[in-house]
């Protein structure tokens, strides 16, 4: 028997008997950050597509979503931080050992890159918006600068895309590293979380393309890509679990959270079943010509990506080195 009593109360980090400081804001931020990374990777890769493919969404319209989704994520993060007036302190230091510091600076780079990426295709993708901005800026006598910037982006489309790819990959991996760097939370303390979150973010972005695209060819290409990504994600999750299972006792204890413990059903049902297996199956059947609602699989993939962040953020907090 081992009975531990805190006879004098401890700090208020405990909720329902376990450590809990991060609520919905952080996992939502991690999901939206990963989705942004996925969007930018797709939009950049498409810059290098063969000329004959049009792919209006993925090669053009898609990139406009990036800054908005990222901003939504940043708002979510801002809601989570507790000393809000001091948020600017993220940008008065660069702490090499802190993933969060890396993240805040990467985010700062992502904004200009995504704007340049948008400008590179804006004339084609959003002619209405382009002329509106032109008109609006002409009042401020800034329209020439805007056109020059657009021309610059169009001319350097591939270079911009080439620079964006590594930054977007860093962003995607960072959303996982943020958690895996915490040695004090055994469930998170796995280097698999970086690639897992990157692939998951990418697959959510691909699902978004499938959901929004109006071209059959684009849809079917991305459906194939998505099947591959979901498979990869499944393998990464398996490796992640094996990693916990073959580590020391505290990590094994962390694993039990999803192998019989409190989060078992939500992990296997919402992430593995409805987030990976079923959408992959639906997509395969769809490619084989079965008549399935085409929106179902991508919606499940996106929801699965969201659940993955929520459940992993929760699980990491539920298993600590100390039970108090």
């Amino acid at each position, binding site marked *: 028997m081992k*009975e531990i009593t805190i*006879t*004098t*109360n401890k700090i208020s980090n405990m909720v329902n008997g376990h450590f809990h400081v991060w609520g919905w804001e952080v996992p939502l931020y991690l999901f939206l950050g990963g989705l942004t990374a996925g969007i930018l990777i797709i939009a950049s890769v498409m810059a290098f597509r063969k000329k004959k493919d049009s792919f209006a969404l993925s090669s053009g319209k898609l990139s406009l979503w990036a800054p908005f989704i990222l901003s939504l994520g940043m708002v979510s993060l801002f809601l989570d931080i507790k000393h809000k007036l001091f948020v600017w302190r993220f940008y008065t230091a660069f702490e090499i050992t802190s993933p969060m510091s890396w993240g805040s600076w990467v985010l700062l780079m992502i904004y200009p890159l995504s704007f340049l990426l948008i400008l590179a295709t804006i004339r084609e993708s959003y002619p209405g918006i382009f002329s509106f901005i032109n008109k609006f800026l002409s009042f401020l006598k800034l329209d020439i600068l805007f056109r020059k910037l657009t021309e610059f982006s169009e001319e350097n489309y591939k270079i911009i895309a080439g620079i964006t790819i590594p930054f977007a990959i860093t962003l995607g991996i960072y959303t996982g590293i943020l958690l895996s760097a915490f040695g004090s939370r055994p469930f998170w303390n796995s280097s698999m979380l970086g690639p897992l979150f990157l692939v998951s973010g990418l697959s959510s972005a691909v699902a978004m393309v499938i959901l929004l695209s109006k071209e059959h060819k684009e849809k079917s290409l991305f459906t194939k890509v998505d099947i591959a990504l979901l498979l990869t994600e499944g393998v990464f999750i398996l490796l992640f679990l094996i990693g916990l299972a073959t580590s020391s006792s505290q990590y094994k204890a962390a694993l039990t959270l999803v192998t019989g413990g409190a989060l078992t059903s939500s992990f296997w049902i919402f992430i593995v079943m409805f987030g990976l297996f079923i959408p992959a199956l639906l997509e395969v059947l769809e490619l084989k010509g079965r008549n399935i609602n085409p929106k179902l699989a991508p919606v499940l993939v996106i929801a699965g990506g969201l659940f993955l962040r929520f459940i992993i953020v929760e699980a990491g907090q539920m298993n600590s080195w100390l039970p108090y």
Partner: protein
Amino acid sequence: MSIKVSACPRDCYSTCSFLVSVNNGRIGLIEPHPGNRATSEGICLKGLSYSERVIHPDRLLYPLKKIGGEFVRIGWDEVFSIIASKIREMHEKYGPESILYYAATGTKGLLNRVGPAFWELSGGFTSTYGDLCWPSGLEATRLTLGENKHNAPWDIEDSGLIISWGKNIAETNIHQMKFIENSLKNGGKFVVIDPRRTETSSKADIHISPAPGTDGALALGIGNLLIRNDFIDKEFIKNNVKGFNEYKKTAGKYTPDIVARITGVSAEELAELSEIIGKTKPMTITAGFGMQRYRNSGQTIRSLIALPVITGNIGKKGGGWVYANLQSHIFDAIVDPLAIYPVNDKENIRNSISVSKLGEGILKSKDPPIKMIWVERGNPVTQNPDTTSVIEAFRSLDFRVVVDQFMTDTAKEADIVLPAKTMFEQSDVINAYWHHYIQLKQKIIDPPGEVKPESEIFYHLAMKLGLSESDLKGKIPPPSDEGVEEFLKERVADFSGLSLDRLKEGPLPAPGSRDIVFDDLIFRTPSGKIELSSDEAEERWGVDKTPEYKPPAVSDKSDLPFVLLSSNTKNRIHSQFGNLKMISQFDDPSFIHINPDDASKKGISEGSSVEVFNNRGIISGKAKIDFGLRSGSLLVRNGRWMDEGGSVNFLTGQIETDMGYGAAFYDNRADIRRLS
């Protein structure tokens, strides 16, 4: 920031010396004064929480008068007029003895004498006798050894064996733990005898858990084995002990089998215990107050004292009987327990109500009946036995005045509530009952709001009653810091080596006090020897001359299944301190402790809402499964307020102990049920 010397005046063994840091009139961190060897290491959490207590938002800062059930702030002049006219009315209608002056042990100090002095000057009053806390142990010690004194606190460092008997040192006398640990480092052994597993017993080499209230039988059983195995000091007995043969006869009846049946302590445990006591020298027994809160308790304590006596441990370095050390009670003409016994020959004081039977005493009082009560330094509604009866008695009176720092359950029953000072707001000289230092509790800050120290309240009342300054001289100090200082100086002046100026620097050992006591082998008993057989015990209390064991009332299991224990916690001094956030953050008084086996029989689990009840009353709380509690007992913390689930004394009877006029708080049974 400045640092001031002071000392804690609470009713507590340790009576710590303080170094108080003061910042802009606010009490800050309190650190230990190195000059008090008994408490030089640190301050307990209650002492540390004074910083909050002084400025607590609930503190009473103005005189209050109850009008239509609500308390309304009134001025001092008005309140003095009301009280003075009530006193006159009582004198005219019923006589002065219709006024009961009830003062408890909420704070120590020489200025506590101002109250009785005032009531005497006013024409007379009724007072109480007895004591709720420890008198049967005091009387047992007095009957056996002649005086209540023991070796210095640090003396046990030299003990070969320390027995903590019925005392949870880790909670109630924390500072003693260090000396025990030092003794263990020196190779000493530590035995704890307690029905509960506690923080203290977790440090022990041996923990013996007798059934509650059967300690006397256990002690006699040990004595029997000590004599049978020739572990006794015959030379010491021959020269210093009266009544050894009678004691031997009494103890001889307590064979290991009988002891096992009574106490639940096995013959093996008893043999081990008596062997370690017989073979380890020197041995000290340090006894608590809990086991002398049964009907048989005086005799219990006498049978405990017999053990260091027959093994020749009295008067030795590292040996002896540690119960109460009144060497610092130099200012009292009569020392406890005699000081608390009824005296009827004193002019103007009727000493007729037992504190153990306060409710009954008031309700049954005659010639004249009690009509008015003045309460200070106490909270009788929750702290005296049989709360229902105390409340009934309170409500039967015409006029009630309560002086307190907070709106206690007693204050709520009053017609007039007067705000009391804290320890930092008036100087006083205090003694102790574990170590032998005299200390000055210094005034450090001015009282907040309109708070007046009690001595000033009495001064102004005396003036209202038409007394003159000269009447009060030497009895009630004038209302100024200088007046108080003069009053204290006069008291201290009688003792060489003591002076107020020296006390301002730190604690001083009481003049005449010694680290080792009874080494002169002078015992102030009738026979001049240690009395294991006492004629006075029989004459005064009607008990056997030898410490014969009588089963406590709780051993009759016929009606209710549980013995009700109400021990103190480290977090409170009785009903004090629990209202502070610093304390309440980790003190949940609502817990009712129950053994896991009993809990499962009753369908109770951790945190269940439960009720504890007997024929006197009901209290409520949350169940706490306690592996350290013996099956068949319940533990409710002493000092709960009404809004914390109700005082445990709703369940205790108005029963006196066999000697000393103590209260048999623990000699009660109860039952528990789960609330749906």
